[in-house]
């Protein structure tokens, strides 16, 4: 079995603030079979997302498969609040790359 990075399989991988204390990630697909393949591979799950960012699993705030939107949604607790001294991404919109580089097994 080989693998491909998530960004070659998903149509959109994005990050954004969800309030000042969270960053939420959406992985979105247009093709249902492909969505289900990635979902069912379990390559994207709280543990793998935490590992991609060097986070403890306790910092993963929530994780959802959103079948009706063909999306995987995961949210992390910000290491520092939005706009606190040292924050480097006010909108949280440039945090997606480690997620999109996670390898997903493909047959």
């Amino acid at each position, binding site marked *: 079995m080989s693998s491909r990075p998530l960004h070659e399989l998903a149509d*959109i991988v994005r990050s*954004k*603030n*969800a*309030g*000042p*204390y*969270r960053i*939420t990630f*959406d992985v*979105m697909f*247009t093709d249902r079979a492909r969505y289900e393949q990635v979902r069912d591979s379990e390559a994207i799950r709280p543990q793998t997302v935490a590992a*991609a*960012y*060097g*986070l403890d699993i306790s910092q993963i*705030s*929530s994780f*959802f498969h*959103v079948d*009706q*939107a*063909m*999306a995987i*949604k995961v*949210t992390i*607790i910000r*290491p520092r*609040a*939005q*706009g*606190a*001294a*040292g924050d*480097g*991404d*006010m*909108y949280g919109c*440039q*945090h997606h*790359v*480690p997620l999109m580089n996670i390898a997903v097994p493909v047959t």
Partner: protein
Amino acid sequence: MVNVGPVTVLTPTGTLGYGFGDEALARGMSLKPAVIAVDAGSTDPGPSYLGSGKPLVSDYGIRRELKVLISAAHAAGIPVIVGSAGGAGTGEQVDRTTALVRDIVAELGIHLKLAWIYADIPIERAKAAVRAGVIEDFEAGTPLTEDILDSTCSLVAQMGHEPICEALEGGADVIIAGRACDDSVIASFPIWRGADPALAIHMGKILECGAFSAEPFAMDVMLGTLYDDHFILEPGSTERRASVKSVAAHSLYERENPFSQGGPGHQMDLSNCAFEQVTERQVKVVGARMTATDDYYVKLEGARLAGYHSICIAGMRCPTFAGAVGGLLDEARARAVDYIAPEKAHITFHLYGRNGVMKELELAPPSGHELGLVIDVVAQTQELAHAVCHHISGGLLHRHYPDVINPSGNLAFPYSPSDIDLGPHYEFSAYHLMKVGSPTELFPVHFEEL
């Protein structure tokens, strides 16, 4: 349920001042909306707008767009509702926006009834709530205390639709609301007209970002029409379409839980929502459910002055310096800490090319031939922040290190002065829920005939 007939809401853009197409607005107005409703802010641009009271968008930008919207609404005989005026929805920002409305109305030579609604929460009112034990943490991670409130310089709460409905009931043609829940700004008019609040609020969640829920997405006009048991979304511009994909995607945007979302006085259940492509450019949405919560909570948003900010921007091109930079920054930080002891400063190195964006979350190995550095200092006074920033920038510029090949300077400054004072640094201090006795008690409505 009362059959109120369809109610169309036109939302011109995702944030007032960020623009919309003239053709899109004209076409949207031809669809006979019952109201123009638009959001003008959120916490998204950061705590500075809340703390300082300065506006997110220039007066020029707000005036330009409000003039177009008020003209169109006046001609059509429909109201205009603006929520979270000025960016954070503080009283100062509401006053600034209403002043622009008065100018516009005078310039247009028209007459209308203006309403404005403050969302500022007196610190003493919140402290009393702390003492009464009716404040809960939302996501701040710490309880709200009287000490934190004493250090808070600006405190607002997100109003629900009820104060805006009160302004509509009072006959307002233009409503400038302080901080408001984004969804409520859009939902208020349909709810006032008797529409199903669950559907109205769900429609508000999608419409509040304008044509961000369309494809191609943009800050542009979006319309939603509420019927008894569903709503239909359609962009103003014929160059765009609403698709099941674009609408479903937007339902996830900027929120953590796609199935369950709390708002002022209610909890939304979106787990049974369904989207259907009814025409090439229109999407039908059904299935939102809402439960009124036993107690009515509003979300507080507070900011405190956390110090003063100075920064220095520099580039690095030499591979020998890039190899040594980690240790040199650590050393520069330690020297600065010694230099100002016992006073303190918060020093951050945003090292672009390494981990400037994500800091400790960045695990990728170094790459690239250039590095960008922002030296970022927050201290109790501007003078101290500046002194620390220059101590670091000047020190790094001329620091010797092993393997140095160019001893004449380590940093390429794009600016003189090299060190820039950014002024006050604000941080969020409150992001908590406060129980209130009624949905309108904290949000007084004022009227003026213009």
